[in-house]
């Protein structure tokens, strides 16, 4: 089963994303901060990571950069999830190595489509 790591400090969003992805047939591990996401992704690399940008301590952008530097995780597909919709933030996200960027408020169905699209792109 395809494993997805979800990191978001907002419990409602974290549970919603996890719920929707599990409903779509993915095996989901959910954590509530950037450091836990980095540890989890490094120790048990998933097939894809969904990261909230604004998390206390270590932001999603920082986690993304770190994952891109580690040998075992540098090819991990990463989707950033954030409330910040400014063009500059999107540029920073892609500059950090993210594969896709979803802005809140988001459509849960679109989230699943984006996950499927990124996974399909990685397989080809």
């Amino acid at each position, binding site marked *: 089963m395809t494993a997805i790591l979800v990191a978001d400090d907002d419990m409602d969003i974290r549970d*919603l994303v996890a*719920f929707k992805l599990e409903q779509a047939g993915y095996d989901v591990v959910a954590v509530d901060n950037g450091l836990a996401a980095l540890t989890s992704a490094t120790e048990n690399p998933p097939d894809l990571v969904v990261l909230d940008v604004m998390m206390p301590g270590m932001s999603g952008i920082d986690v993304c950069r770190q994952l891109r530097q580690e040998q075992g995780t*540098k090819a991990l597909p990463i989707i950033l999830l954030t409330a910040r919709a400014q063009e500059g933030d999107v540029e920073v996200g892609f500059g950090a190595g993210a594969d896709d960027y979803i802005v809140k*408020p988001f459509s*849960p169905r679109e989230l699943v489509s984006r996950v499927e699209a990124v996974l399909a792109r990685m397989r080809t």
Partner: protein
Amino acid sequence: MTLAGTALVALFVVLFAALVLGALIVGGRTVRRAREAGRARLAGPARRLLLAIAAGDDDPRQIEELVRLPDEVWLAVEPSAVALLGKVRGEAHTTLVDVFERRGAAWRARSQLKRRDPVARAMAAEVLGNLRRRDAVLPLCDLLSDPDPDVRVVAARSLGRIGDAGATQPLLATLRSRRPVPAHVVATALTRLGTPAQGALTAALDDPRSPVRATAAEVLGLIGAAGATVRVESALRADPAVEVRVSAARTLGRLGTRTALAPLLDALGEDRPAVLRAEAARALGELGAVTAAPALTALLADADYAVAHNAARSLLRLGSAGRAALVAAEHRAHVRPRHSAEPDEGPGPEVLLGAAHAREALAAAELDDRRRQAVP
């Protein structure tokens, strides 16, 4: 009573007070935890139902079940419902709105707007904003002058979510109020109103208060109001407040209209404030006009770090012509002046400064290129 006796009594009194206080704190926490646990127990099954609806499930039975939840269960799950309402869009949002409406949440929220408890007022404003209730625009505008600053912020955000351009003037008015809303909150809310707000925002460029003019100038760029370019250009040229001129420069960069080239180049003049020159230098990069390359190249040796730094980054954004200018500026640091009398005389400090800024920009660009190549 002896002195020792008095001290002993005082000690007992202090100890007793400390014990009572400790017991009150522990008791308070225990009661709060018990309440939270009770709410979580109540909310548990309903939360699963709520997540299914928020995830986009449109099973009528589940929707009906959520609509018919007993009030005490709904109250336990309502904070999560309000939070999710603001964070999902599409069909999931529509379905959630339907649930809220059928539970009478809009009516209840309207009745809570005048509650004494500021948390209740803020929560009600949040619900009305998330439900996009246009009939709540007027009461929410009233809340913009609420005595509680957090309530004012929530009201401003909710007006932005509702997206009714009628809120433009009241939102701008909060910037000159005795009870203001932070400018960035007002700017974000106005941006969500979109192009219908353009007329009122353009008119606000003539407001006597500079924070109002600066916010209006900023938002005109964020909503892409190209029709306001001429008015923003004149604000850049002639507004008496530097903060307004800086916002105007930023907006002209965002709007990307060719006519902005002349006023932006004019704003680079040495007699202008450094903060304005720095913003104009950045905006010229966003504008992407290659004809700005010579003016930006001349700024590489500017004594103000932000001006020179932004000029270098803007040259990068101009493409090959800008990069060539940076390479040439960097190269000049290694060239001995042709007519130098002294055989060991090197380039002057201005040339070295310009070369350093050029080198920094080129190095940053190379790092970006390498990072992009490294990403599989």
